[in-house]
């Protein structure tokens, strides 16, 4: 079942085509990777999906329904959550409060406060940060901040989770833990669409990979195909 579908999605900033004519789809239960050199349009595509930006043209469908033009909070309530390339936590609030907000406002029917707290504590444990419950979010290491952001996104009960470079700046050990976490999320039935530069991670974890370059989709396939695709190798390494 297609959970997300984009048809002829275009985004122009003035004369610059950040995303030009991209067709893509994500099936329920997949873990799909999105790669490409810097400036390829990956985060822009995420912004178009989550509602931060409106496409210049094209249609995006989520669970069969058109979501182009909806505001981010409406899309969130329909079941799509995301993390950000540059972590956007509520720094002066505690880790628990960050996640709690996701619980309280993110689900389609809203949440009773008692249940929200219990859920948030569970999610804290899920990402392995129970010890940080009362710490201020801004005091955490970057790696932990990313975990909090994932937990906060999960608190909104998404069916599709967009991860934007969640491994950027992590040590190899931390990357390993992040891969485990993503697999755990996948096994919960949540579809994952992730932008990543850490090739080892994305090759390990993805069922399928989409490659963008200069705003266009230049390749799509299983990791082995992508790793040996001459076009992909060229854009990363040059001719």
């Amino acid at each position, binding site marked *: 079942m297609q959970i997300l579908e984009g048809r002829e999605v275009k985004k122009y900033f003035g004369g610059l085509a950040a995303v030009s004519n991209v067709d893509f789809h994500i099936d329920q239960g997949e873990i799909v990777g999105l790669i490409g050199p810097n400036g390829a349009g990956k985060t822009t595509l995420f912004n178009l999906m989550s509602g931060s930006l409106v496409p210049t043209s094209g249609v995006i469908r989520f669970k069969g329904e058109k979501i182009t033009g909806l505001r981010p909070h409406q899309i*969130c309530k329909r079941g799509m959550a995301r993390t950000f390339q540059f972590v*956007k936590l509520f720094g*002066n*609030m505690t880790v628990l409060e960050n996640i709690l907000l996701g619980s309280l406002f993110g689900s389609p029917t809203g949440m009773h*406060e008692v249940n929200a707290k219990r859920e948030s504590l569970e999610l804290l444990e899920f990402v392995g940060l129970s010890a940080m419950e009362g710490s201020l979010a801004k005091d955490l290491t970057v790696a932990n901040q990313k975990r909090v952001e994932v937990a906060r996104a999960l608190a909104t009960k998404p069916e599709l989770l967009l991860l934007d470079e969640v491994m950027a700046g992590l040590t190899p050990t931390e990357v390993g833990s992040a891969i485990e976490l993503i697999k755990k999320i996948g096994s919960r039935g949540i579809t994952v669409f992730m932008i990543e530069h850490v090739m080892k991670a994305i090759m390990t974890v993805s069922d399928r990979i989409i490659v963008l370059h200069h705003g266009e989709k230049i390749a799509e396939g299983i990791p082995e195909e992508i790793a040996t695709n001459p076009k992909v190798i060229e854009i990363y390494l040059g001719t």
Partner: protein
Amino acid sequence: MRRTISKKIFYLMLFSLIFILMVIMPSYVSPYTIILLNSIFMYIILTVSWALFSGPTHYLSLASAAFFGLGIYVSAILGDKLPLLVVIGLGGLISFLLALLVGLSSLRLRGMYFTIFTFGLSELIRHSVQWWEVNKTGTVGRWVVAVDHMTVYYVMLGILLITLVVAYLIRHSKYGLALLSIGESEEAAEHIGININAMKMITFAISTFFMGATGAIMATRWSYIDPSIAFNPLFSFMPVLMAIFGGVGNIFGQILGAGVLTLLADVLLTKFPYYYMLLYGMILVVVVLFLPKGLTGLKEEVKRWREGGSVNPVRKDGPRPE
């Protein structure tokens, strides 16, 4: 250490005690004290309602004078036609509606742009009312139906109580938490399901309701008003100053700031009639310089100073989930 009653209940009892004191006080003190208390109540209401929206979201509004003045004019125009409480309610309601309009038009503005916009709006309203009064109504100022200071006192006390209760309830609810998150990262807040536009607009409008209602009752004290009195920009600046002075992060700080500064102004004015502005300004500067978190940050600053400067940043007060 054994605690027999919880902190919350203690503060509730203390608050009730102070409130009861305020209710019975007028019969035992001089009219001057009552008038002074009216002023203090007014500034507390303005400061707490300003901070209701601008505190957590960091959208600094300088439009308080517009809504306060609107309430004043509602009183001036309708004071002799409708009962007092209706006029006050209308002052609040019309401010509320105007605020919704203002919210709609300023939603895309952030930071300094929003602040300047609100200030410009306030001035625009002042000049518009002035133009209308001079050219269409043929007056400059208006007379307001006078009300005795005891009635004014009790009405103000009532508005104050409601304002404080509403501010407290919002702050300690999930909406208070959401407002804080808007101040921290609006984009993230929107992506976890918070309707930021609706929340900003409604909270802003609620805060202006109390400003308008207060304006409506204060007008009866001044008995003569004109646009430069009603929409005096000082009514926009003072709540901001008082909140910062006392401590923007929590309601007690806001009350403290408003109370102390109003009292201070009164004391200085009577004791140093020639220098009071200078002294007032100096005290403001000193406090803001050395106590960036305002008066309520005093305890922490002293502690920090004693320890020779601490490494960890101090937590800004915020609502906690129960």
